[in-house]
């Protein structure tokens, strides 16, 4: 199993007291599988994704990626995991502002020591980015930026791809196009995909759907 989440708990200390966001989440994801995660705003979808992405630490339960537990990993080990095994696409601000599109595209792959020039070129072409390769992120539209983010993740060929409303800021048409491309390319790399989305239509396109309510998935 690529990803195993068992009895995952996470709470935040707020001014009004403790806020239990995740209260025992269980889920599994196999390699090559595509899973949609939906739920009301503020229910904890992003939180769950950040925990799985080894960005934040959880309070209880466990997360295993390829049977390796995330519990008790050091900062350095978590960073290595993000670099080597996980690709994360956020809703926005994915890109490194100081690097050109071309460098952004290859950055993650090079960091992980897996740069594949031909694959990069292919990605750039299929994502329609060839004419922007020399541009800087802030010169691109939101949709173009998201395509770069997707390209960057795919270029690194991670085993697990996490996406948090990757097309949330885009209009429906663009969103559809970008998503189609992404699903197509993910399928080619054989990675597992966990995607948070608000759109039922998108969720329908995935292999499986989970809904997060009251801190648990169903």
């Amino acid at each position, binding site marked *: 199993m690529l990803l195993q989440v068992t009895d995952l708990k996470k709470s935040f200390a707020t001014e009004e007291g403790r806020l239990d966001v995740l209260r025992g989440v269980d889920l599994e994801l196999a390699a090559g599988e595509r899973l949609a995660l939906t739920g009301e705003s503020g229910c904890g979808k992003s939180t769950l994704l950040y925990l799985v992405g080894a960005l934040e630490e959880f309070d209880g339960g466990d997360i295993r990626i390829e049977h390796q537990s995330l519990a008790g990993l050091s900062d350095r080990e978590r960073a290595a995991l993000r670099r080597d095994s996980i690709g994360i696409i956020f809703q926005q601000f994915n890109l490194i502002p*100081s690097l050109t599109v071309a460098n952004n595209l290859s950055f993650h792959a090079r960091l992980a020591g897996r740069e594949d020039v031909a694959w990069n070129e292919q990605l750039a072409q299929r994502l329609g980015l060839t004419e922007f390769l020399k541009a800087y992120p802030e010169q691109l539209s939101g949709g173009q930026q998201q395509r770069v983010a997707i390209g960057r993740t795919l270029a690194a060929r991670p085993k697990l791809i996490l996406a948090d409303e990757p097309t949330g800021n885009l209009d429906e048409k663009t969103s559809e196009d970008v998503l189609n491309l992404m699903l197509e390319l993910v399928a080619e790399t054989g990675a597992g995909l966990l995607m948070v989305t608000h759109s039922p239509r998108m969720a329908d396109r995935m292999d499986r759907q989970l809904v997060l309510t009251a801190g648990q998935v169903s």
Partner: protein
Amino acid sequence: MRLASVLRVLWSHWTYRPLQFFALLIGLSLATGLWTGVQAINTEARSSYAEASSTIISNALDYLERKDGTPIKPETYLALQKSGWRTSPLLEGQVQFGDGRSVRVVGIDPITMPREMAALTQPVQGEADQDGSGGLVGFLVPPFTVFVSPGLADLKLNVANIGDVVVSENLPEGTLLTDISLAAQILNKPGEISRLVLAADQKRTRVNLSEVAPQLQRIANTSGADMARLTDSFHLNLTAFGLLAFAVGLFIVQGTINLAFEQRRAMCRTLRVTGTSMTVLTIALLLELLLIALVAGTIGVLLGYFIAALLLPDVAATLRGLYGARVSGELDFHVGWWLSGLAIAVAGTFLAAFWSLTKLIRMPILAASRPRAWARMSARSTLARLAASGICFALALVLYGWGSGLVVAFTIVGAVLIGAALLLPDAMALIISLFEKLAVRPVSQWFWADTRQQLPGLSLALMALMLALAANIGVSTMVGSFRLTFEGWLDQRLASELYVRAADEQQAQQLRTWLAAHPDVDAVLPIWSVETRIDGEPGQVFGVADHRTYRDQWPMLDRSATAWSDVAAGKAILINEQLARRKGLRVGDPVTIDEASRQYKLPVGGIYSDYGNPHAQAMIHVDLLTQLYPEVPRRRHAIRVDPSKAADLSRQISAEFGLGGRSLVDQALIKQRSVEVFERTFTVTQALNVLTLSVAGFAIFTSLLTQSAMRLPQLAPVWALGLTRRELAGLELLRGILLAGLTMIMALPLGLMLAWLLLAVVNVEAFGWRLPMFVFARDWLMLGVYGLIATALAAAIPARRFSKTEPAELVKVFAHER
């Protein structure tokens, strides 16, 4: 009230970001403080000169006194008047009054008093004019008006013929000034004259002093009119330093204000959308700035006062040592400083805020906030900077080629500094992009790319650092070179072991005979001189003996091969550098010496350096001197003796002739005194250096700190892709050190350029001499190490803060609309 609520909303930004607020406050206070400090030192020193010049009469002008120090007789005075001498009698004495107070009484003759003593007579004439008598009536006829210093306002005088007692601020404390006849009465010295003050413009046809009054000698002024010129350049130096420090401080202010405005765009937008007019918003922002400026200005003035109080004793000692100028060394607190300090703080703040403010006012109501857009270096602004820099350098070149004068010299310095500062960001960007191209690994590639993008946000602080470093290198090199040259020069000039000045001609004669017979004495060299005109300029001509002391040691800048033999043969003259530069004289050019009755022409045999003397000076053979000026005083001599026997000889002379104190000086003592003066100058320079450097360090710190808040969107994606916070923090630290290092490397040539300008241009304009430049590479190394440590400290705090940032903070970058 609407304005009040707008203000409250705006102000909430500062409570939300207290660090930014303190950065702004400290930056502005430091800038104001350094400026006020330097101003305070200048004002204090200048007011001390004013006091000194009114004290003195005796010091401001040359005067005649009896060689034996006894009072001059009125007959002598009249004889001199008749022989064409323009003099004015002066009586001086100390008197103890009934209440035990000791008062210095000065009696002057208002009619013959030279024009140059105007400062002194000002209160006199001013008072007299009031009663409409249109002159010096109160002063001239009994009862005489008496002027006293403020502390003597309650003095009871039991003397006849006393008229009004006027308190004069212009008199030094403990002084009473009145007509000479009344003074004679108070001092009980009827018909006496202490000295005869010489007017500056004397008739050329006057009879030689030695003929009219051989018992009198002329004493050269000690503080002279040139003092103002010399000290002015010192103050100009200080002012330039103060201005530089202020500019460096303004960089901090500009950076923080810009950031605060940038971060409050959304706030301003909301305010405007909810119905606040642009006018109200602008007024609120201006009020806010004014308030900050006033608070910071107040702190700054206090700070400046302490800086000045700390430095003034050294400045005073320097001025006294270098120029003989008297500065009290104590600091008064003037109301004017408050006002000027606050004014400059307010002006500086508005100047620094001008750009941000106009940008905000021009902002369309719904413009999106683009936190990174401002940081992008556009090709257009690069071009504008390069053009401005080019104009500065061109101006400097043109002024160097065709301009003259001290102000021009400092303008050149300023233009070069500004031109170089403008060049810095683009030069850095070029170097960094070069590294970027060479980088292979993705992280290093990102590191360089990111550094380049961060440059615009840091460039003001880096410019500040470069200016501070360059000033540091430049001024230290100048002072260091001066010290080295001066000490070497002293060794040459003061080659003789002992310097002796006989009380009178008779004693001088005995001394010569006695020394000639002394077994330990190797040589007795005359130091005889006359005041005359050299090539049309007033100056001193010295007579020298033909001796190896001169041949081997004299600090020649340029000379003909046969210079010393020509001088010995009475066929050449040596002149000092100042005169040569002012008159454009070279070796071989003819120079005329004005003798009372005729002119004497000699070719220049050599030019020697003569630091610390603003006047023209020349040397001819001693026989020629006595031949041209038979009346030349022959009281001063230099003695060559085995150094180990010098102290012993000195004791013998002093026992034999009763000479001591300033009449018998050993060379080591003079050198030691001179060196002490330089130590003081160094202290002042060093203190100002450290202050400027710390302001620059603080500029770096605040800009790194304020930028660190905006750094999260740059760093979070890299973190998410698999770098730890520690690694990123390390890179942030490295970046700070690297930028500072690069800045230092660029500051070095600029500093040397500055040093050269100070030595070869400013000094020549200010003093008339040019100093060779010595480089002190070890000092640079130290400076470099200090600079790196300072930057590392400045960069460490924001870096540490980043490494402690919660991941939750970082992921917010991706989740929130920013």
